[in-house]
């Protein structure tokens, strides 16, 4: 790995790399001003609202690889704009959503899909959380059972009860 910052992104063609400090600053800004996040959302093109709506439905399913936590619909990165253009063009050529998604997967891999398909390489992704949940539930049940057994064993025998009564009497009993 390079010691410096990552390579320039499509989103910042003219400025280049922000560096660690810049990144930290941006992060701070993002955390401090969560409301501003929606302000930069991509505006649909007004030319054909029906087509744009369809473009956006597909774009919502796709991850922007430049800014990985954004959809192609929400991102203003150059690449996202270009890919929306591709979707628009393919839709007007009469391609189906599935054909367009396949086109993207063929180039960028399953990673572009916000809902990746279930297959050998993604099994952990799909099953993992449920497996962890089951595991946690199992541990919880064992613990509860053990706790109950413990509580049952803590019952006092008659001799201990007598001794306790005596101690309480000595000090005058409960107030």
């Amino acid at each position, binding site marked *: 790995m390079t010691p410096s910052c*990552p*390579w320039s992104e499509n989103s910042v063609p003219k400025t280049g790399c922000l560096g660690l400090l810049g990144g930290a600053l941006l992060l701070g800004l993002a955390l401090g001003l969560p409301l501003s996040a929606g302000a930069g959302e991509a505006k649909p093109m007004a030319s054909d609202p029906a087509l744009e709506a369809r473009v956006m439905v597909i774009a919502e399913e796709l991850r922007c690889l*430049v800014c990985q936590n954004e959809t192609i619909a929400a991102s203003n990165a150059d690449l996202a704009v*270009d890919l929306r253009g*591709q979707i628009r063009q393919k839709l007007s050529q009469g391609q189906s959503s599935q054909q367009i998604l396949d086109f993207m997967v063929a*180039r960028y891999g399953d*990673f572009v899909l916000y809902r990746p398909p279930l297959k050998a390489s993604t099994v952990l992704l799909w099953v993992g959380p449920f497996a962890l949940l089951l595991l946690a539930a199992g541990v919880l049940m064992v613990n509860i059972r053990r706790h109950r057994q413990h509580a049952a064993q803590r019952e006092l025998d008659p001799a201990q009860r007598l001794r306790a009564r005596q101690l309480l009497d000595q000090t005058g009993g409960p107030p």
Partner: protein
Amino acid sequence: MKRYLLPLLAFLVLVGFLAVGLRLNPREVPSPLVNRPTPEFRLPTLADPAQQLAPKDLLGKVWLLNVWASWCVACRLEHPVLVDLARADLVPVYGLNYKDKRPDALAWLEKFGNPYQQSLQDSDGLAGIELGVYGVPETFVIDRAGVIRFKHIGPLTPEVLRDTILPLVGKLGA
């Protein structure tokens, strides 16, 4: 003693996950194009826009395709590596000048040296999309049959070149 064992075990598992996870680069997404034929496109060359070149024209030789742009700062970082590689004449390097302006690109090569046999002008970035490019620079190793054998995302380092790319090129029979 036993009551500490489970938390300790959980902690070690967590440490293990973090140790692996923190070393991974989330930007390095495996490309589905590796071991697939190079996508077809035909583009004007940077030196002479009247002349066109396609990956198909390079069938029969092993070559590197380096995606670069004059606006890409990290490209400047890797550039000396490419210039050295070209000087050593180990494998031909072709450039894909991604979403750039011709005068800027030419000035850039003038200034930093031109390691490319040819650069193709991908001014609208469509060939980039065909290649699944999402962060310049990117470098592809392409074999004699025109199949992409390896993709490196981000700036080339002498280490990547020495340990991965050149041995692969050697194996492919450059």
